[in-house]
């Protein structure tokens, strides 16, 4: 993976284009730039020249996520721009790419311009780019027609194609197209370029035509964004920074919506640009949990698609079990030919309990009992998976050990990099492993499942059983994971039940799940807010002092906004109002350094040392659960919780904010407002 700083992205769900600041794409292996749809790169080169000169960017307007405008002039980066000729490229992403190119002659002479667009398509799968795999099995083809350049890739019955055309007469050749443009002084010339992306079946039917039907004309997408924003509550606050974060997050959540082909148009969140532009079980469930007060429409669609793809059999490549909720779903060539296991891949241990947690939380907000009835079997199967398939050592915990040894994930919790689970002295535990936060999710899922069984499914016996199991898990967990001498919970259990003794942010999630006895909570909170974990911006994934701590370690020391938002929720649950507020203040302040867009993660350096949050090199942005983090932090500051048929409000504002009001919060109560104001005599 490489840093893609300085790039410009244009997004519509899992279709997106990443270019340089002049609008050009010149991809090299291993770099995620180009035009992508459904995990496939349809354009790997898209480079404009005028009279043989490349264009240099003067300014870029990307205020709409699906549209970017580049103001460019010919010539490299020089001190003095002789800009008689200038151009505007207005790019728009929808089901296909359109780009309007306008060239101006503000000079005093007639101009003969050779306008050239270099085009290439490598049809690389996103995993070929991620792992820098060069050679493709299938064959490329090129068809030059009078009115279009068609580039294709074929491997057996798998076929992908991109057709580039223009509204003005052009000369097409295998490497692009060319316009001969004559401009008198003061004249301008325009053309509208299109790159139509096709996923062709052997009978010629384009699988992507459904997407075109969902975006019948140019106004569909802007109208849907307006409707999305109009349906969300209005934030009223004296903090311009918070307002910026809220608006940015709302729009980024809109950008990442995509409609899986099997769902009839309903949208779910893709996880994030550029590597995760698809459905992830864990990311989408946590994003829905974060955003219920603001964009609840994501939740039923997410629950439905995860239910429809719930595991039904046992498969060691996909790591599928009956009842298991998927980890990752991909549509690219590597998934299609089962070279990667993502069709779908089930290697996660938290998505199944979180599925039940979201179903219950969604019902509490929406009162949508019909959905709880509709998904009863899937929820029961997810709960059954916890006990029947995840307890690999028959000790009453969720464990993981990959069965797909070639391409499966070592760590199947949210910290899924290979070295994320280690002892304080740096040793890696054996397998299977049981991480602490997953046991919390299982406990919460059983408690919430019991509520659904009692109040909606009419099965009190099942509810009693789930509650008994939850109580037993609570006792067992507090016996086996608690490190009395340290005053916190072990990150995980090793295969032989030895506690993996490092101090990590995972213990914060335990507060959210409610598996911590109230008398132990103060000691846990002391660690979360202590200097080893709390950087001043937020809680680090991994504490200073652990052998593998690194402030730029992906899961070993960086600060993740999503992680912090759930910790803040947990702190509120246990009554730690000020501590929750400190996290909200820290994370939301950090957002101002990223123009309101919280990245996936940032450096774990101390706030007093760096004074600004240090960018993590390959952090994805926008990232759904980072956008969701700001929504959840607003929820925790307002202290809003559904309580029977109304919304309870119990604000706890950190001193950085004078006033926050969230107006028209949707739910079973219709819409209500929640207010928080700084008290004159604050504690």
């Amino acid at each position: 993976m490489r840093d893609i700083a300085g790039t410009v992205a244009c997004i519509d769900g899992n279709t997106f284009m990443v270019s340089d600041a002049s609008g050009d794409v010149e991809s090299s292996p291993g770099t995620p730039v180009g035009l992508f749809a459904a995990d496939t790169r349809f354009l790997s080169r898209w480079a404009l020249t005028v009279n043989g000169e490349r264009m240099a960017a003067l300014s870029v307007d990307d205020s709409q996520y699906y549209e970017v405008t580049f103001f460019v002039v010919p010539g490299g980066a020089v001190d003095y721009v002789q800009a008689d000729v200038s151009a505007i490229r207005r790019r728009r992403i929808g089901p296909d790419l359109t780009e309007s190119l306008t060239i101006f002659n503000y000079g005093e002479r007639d101009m003969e311009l050779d306008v050239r667009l270099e085009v290439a398509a490598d049809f690389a799968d996103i995993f070929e780019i991620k792992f820098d795999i060069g050679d493709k099995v299938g064959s490329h083809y090129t068809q030059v027609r009078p009115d279009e350049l068609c580039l294709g890739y074929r491997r057996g019955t798998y076929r992908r194609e991109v057709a580039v055309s223009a509204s003005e007469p052009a000369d097409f050749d295998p490497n692009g197209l060319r316009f001969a443009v004559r401009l008198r002084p003061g004249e301008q010339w325009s053309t509208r370029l299109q790159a139509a992306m096709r996923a062709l079946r052997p009978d010629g039917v384009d699988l992507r035509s459904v997407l075109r039907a969902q975006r019948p004309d140019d106004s569909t997408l802007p109208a849907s964004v307006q409707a999305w924003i109009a349906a969300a509550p209005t934030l009223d606050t004296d903090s311009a920074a918070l307002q910026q974060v809220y608006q940015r997050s709302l729009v980024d959540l809109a950008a990442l919506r995509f409609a899986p082909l099997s769902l009839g148009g309903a949208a779910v969140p893709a996880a994030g640009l550029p590597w995760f532009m698809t459905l992830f079980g864990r990311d989408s469930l946590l994003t829905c949990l974060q955003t219920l007060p603001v964009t609840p429409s994501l939740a039923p669609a997410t629950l439905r698609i995860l239910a429809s793809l719930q595991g039904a059999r046992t498969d060691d490549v996909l790591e599928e079990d009956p009842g298991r909720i998927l980890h990752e779903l991909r549509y690219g060539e590597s998934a299609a030919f089962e070279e990667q296991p993502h069709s779908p891949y089930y290697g996660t241990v938290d998505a199944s309990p979180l599925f039940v947690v979201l179903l219950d939380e969604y019902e509490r907000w929406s009162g949508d009992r019909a959905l709880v009835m509709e998904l009863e079997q899937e929820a029961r199967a997810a709960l059954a998976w916890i006990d029947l398939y995840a307890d690999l050592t028959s000790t009453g915990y969720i464990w993981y050990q990959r069965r797909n040894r070639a391409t499966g994930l070592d760590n199947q919790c949210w910290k899924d990099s290979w070295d994320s689970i280690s002892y304080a002295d740096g040793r890696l535990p054996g397998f299977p492993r049981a991480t602490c936060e997953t046991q919390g999710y299982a406990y919460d899922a059983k408690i919430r499942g019991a509520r659904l069984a009692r109040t909606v499914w009419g099965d009190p016996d099942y509810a009693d059983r789930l509650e008994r199991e939850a109580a037993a898990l609570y006792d067992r967990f507090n016996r086996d994971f608690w490190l009395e001498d340290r005053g916190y919970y072990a990150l995980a259990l090793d295969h032989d039940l030895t506690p993996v003794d490092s101090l990590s942010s995972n213990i914060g999630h335990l507060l959210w799940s409610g598996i911590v006895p109230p008398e132990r909570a103060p000691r846990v909170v002391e660690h979360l807010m202590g200097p080893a974990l709390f950087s001043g911006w937020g809680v680090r994934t991994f504490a200073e002092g652990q052998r593998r701590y690194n402030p730029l370690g992906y899961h070993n020391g960086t600060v993740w906004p999503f992680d912090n938002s759930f910790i803040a929720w947990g702190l509120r649950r246990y009554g730690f109002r000020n501590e929750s507020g400190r996290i909200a203040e820290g994370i939301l302040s950090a957002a101002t350094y990223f123009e309101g867009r919280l990245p996936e993660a940032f450096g774990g350096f101390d706030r007093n040392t760096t004074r600004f949050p240090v960018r993590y090199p390959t952090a994805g942005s926008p990232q759904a659960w980072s956008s969701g983090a700001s929504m959840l932090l607003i929820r925790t500051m307002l202290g809003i919780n559904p309580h029977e048929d109304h919304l309870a409000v119990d604000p706890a504002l950190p001193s950085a904010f004078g006033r926050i009001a969230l107006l028209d919060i949707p739910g079973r109560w219709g819409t209500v407002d929640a207010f928080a104001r700084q008290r004159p005599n604050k504690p």
Partner: protein
Amino acid sequence: MTATSAFFERLTVAGQDPRFSKVCGSIRFDIRDGDHLEQWRLNIDHGRMQVTKGPDPATTVIRVSAQVAEAMARGEVNGLAAIARGEILVDGDLGLALRIGRLFPRAPGPSHGDADSGA
């Protein structure tokens, strides 16, 4: 008997599947072997399954070669991957087709998940 007809025989005998108690819809499998077209129609009404042979219309149609159909019936096909690579063509309700995919076994032979289906 081919694995395909054995598969549909099994569905006929089973008659119902509790996993589909909230599912209603009809799916026709058009299985082509050269010039020969074999058609099976599966109707699901709240878990009750009815199999008929022939060209009756259905809301969702799945088109495959006889070779792929045999592999599916033997449990050797990942349906989603096969759709993405163009070996299984689905017209109609893709979501329903994916659910119905659970009726097919997965090699190597029936998994212990099948123990749940009679519950």
